[in-house]
């Protein structure tokens, strides 16, 4: 039998190979597969079967985690299309976006002592992330322009990082007291 083209993690869930995702379909497919392959289903079988179940269920979760996360999904998609991106490595300047990055960094410094400013910045960055995701979807799914997609992916990667920083920072602000000892 001839192999179908490599559809990576998408094939596992019978999903079309594209960035725009039907989240409900992914969730349903993931549950259906786990219902069949989770180690609990093999607990009464031989050790070999248990090991297989562990492997399969792990693989299903791995694919699910990649597809669920927009960044990971985009990176996977680019890889399938022969244009892998190493997000940990910095390449070429993106002058336009660099200015934006610096502006956000400064705004974050200034907002450290001002909860309202922090919330406003968080909203601004969230909007930006949404726009970047839309652009990424267009580049991948409508234009098949993977070079442009890679650039949007890098931008989104940075935006998500700063978003995580803000979230961490806001949660630090509400840390709780600890009970005193005797």
């Amino acid at each position, binding site marked *: *039998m001839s*192999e*179908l083209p490599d*559809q990576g993690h998408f*094939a*596992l*869930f*019978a999903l079309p190979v594209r960035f725009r995702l039907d989240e409900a*379909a992914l969730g*349903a*497919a993931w*549950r*259906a*597969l*786990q*219902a*069949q*392959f*989770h*180690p*609990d*289903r*093999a*607990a*009464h*079988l*031989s*050790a*070999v*079967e248990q*090991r*297989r*179940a*562990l*492997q*399969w*269920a*792990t*693989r299903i*979760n*791995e694919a*699910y*985690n990649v597809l669920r996360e927009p960044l990971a999904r985009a990176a996977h998609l680019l890889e399938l299309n022969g244009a892998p991106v190493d997000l940990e490595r910095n390449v070429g300047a993106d002058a336009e976006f660099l200015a934006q990055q610096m502006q956000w960094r400064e705004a974050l410094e200034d907002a450290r002592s001002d909860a309202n400013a922090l919330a406003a910045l968080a909203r601004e960055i969230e909007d930006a992330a949404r726009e970047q995701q839309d652009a990424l979807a267009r580049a991948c799914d409508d234009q098949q322009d993977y070079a442009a997609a890679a650039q949007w992916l890098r931008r989104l990667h940075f935006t998500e990082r700063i978003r995580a920083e803000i979230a961490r920072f806001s*949660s630090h602000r*509400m*840390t*709780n*007291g*600890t*009970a*005193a*000892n*005797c």
Partner: protein
Amino acid sequence: MALLQIAEPQDAAAPHQHRWALGIDLGTTHSLVAVVRNGAPECLPDEDGHCLLPSVVRYEADGAVRIGHEAAAQRGAIASVKRLMGRGYADIPNRESIALDLLEGDGMVRLHTAQGVKTPVEVSARILGALAERARASLGDDFVGAVITVPAYFDDAQRQATKDAARLAGIHVLRLLNEPTAAALAYGLDRAAEGVFAIYDLGGGTFDLSILRLSRGLFEVIATHGDSALGGDDFDHRIYCWMLEQARIAPPCPADIARMMRAARAAKEALTQDERARIALTLDSGEAIDLTLTRDTFFAMTSLLLEKTLASVRAALRDANLAANDIDGVVLVGGATRMPHVRRAVAEFFGKEPLVDLNPDQVVALGAARQANILAGNRDAHEDWLLLDVIPLSLGVEMLGGLAEKIIPRNATLPVARAQEFTTARDGQTAMSIHVVQGEREMVADCRSLARFELRGIPPMVAGAARIRVTFQVDADGLLTVRAREESTGVEANISVQPSYGLTDTEIADMLRASLAHAADDRDARALAEARLEGEQLLAATASAMAADGDLLSADERAAIDQHCAALTDAIAHAQDTVAVYHATEALASATEAFAARRMNRSIRRALAGKNIDELELPK
């Protein structure tokens, strides 16, 4: 097809060969055992009709060991040992109020007893052993294994310690199940509940908060948070501190501490009914304490503890991306949720009355029994549900500069694995050490140290040339295993584990040998037979996989697999030693892993060709 031989529910053991399987709630204060009989879970009482076994052990000087009621309230009895599991001496909170003789030292804390030094694992094994005995007596039959519950927020060391305790007690662990998940299971199956539920579980020594989505046969944990050192005991401790302050007595001796803690607990429980509680006792020192504690004072002195639990609730909601009013129902579990101010605070937080109609003492064991029954293969036709749980704390490795790099994030659905590549720093380096930690903080020093993995047998190469792929696998019990392989040569690195707060395999083996309850020779023979059987099964599965999908292998890969098959066949035929067979099996399993993944992809692709997911039925 070997890789698809996961049995369907109806393939499970036929009903007439019912296989008993236990659900055990190994609690800080109480433990209990339940089974599913005639389709319904029930707790098994002792001869006196008590379901709850106090989690108390006393080692007598004459060699006897008393467990439960007959040990409780006795001088020198060991209580709340669960708080010591997988913990170091320095980690034990409120050490001064624990009336135990703890040994200072590295690794897991140890206790002095009248029968010498014991580990918390051995003490817990006694409790598990007593419950197993109770079950055998009550069922008039043996059982195949047990699901043992652990706090959801238990880290790897605490889980491993629990599993080791079961092993020492001779109990086959079908699964470690998180306590709030067990409660959700009991509740959800009992009430056919659907929606998003929060389980607030405040027991004697631990606090968990889990958020689950319950829908058509699926129990999916979305987020969990908690504190494995916060429970009713800490409320007792606040009262104890208050007594010390109010009565102005000299620092008490261990026996008096134990007496005062018991009085504190009685007062706390009395305040659930009454507005005030009298605390009157005479100490060994001759001093008398006579105090009255009001509800208001008690609530005020414990408000910080309550606030700590609510901080966990907020954290879990944040991780789940939910608001308090997204929660459809709140279930209270654990004896300490009987306290009125706890109930009130939880009700206020969620804006709805919590559900308390199931017995909070039993619900965890009942849920565990249902899970055990399924895992043992007793699934009824109508009983089709699945439980998906998460890892409570992120796993990381130590990087240069003492930074912890996350490898598996908290709340990832289990089972989960992540591979990471490492390289060597020196020419000809053949060994390296990987320090694995658990926790959310950025610095290794602020996380829990789990273990150091020593990799040996890395082929010598120039610095930076070796590509060592280390796979961190967390199984459905939430337990970590680590494998390593040098990618360019395919050499499997030899790993030895030095747990930071656990027992090594050798220590467990020694304890097993030393325990009279087990005839070592028998066990060795059985282990060898089991290892051989497993090896034979893997050989058969591999042969049929190669026959069916051999075209997925390159000639080199095929030769490598053939070689491992030959080695395993040889080990089965000649080796008298379980470990050798086991290693050969592991080696073959690992050599066929990539093949297995390719076959899985192929079979799923075949199954999917021209179908949508609703019709998905994978070939067997």
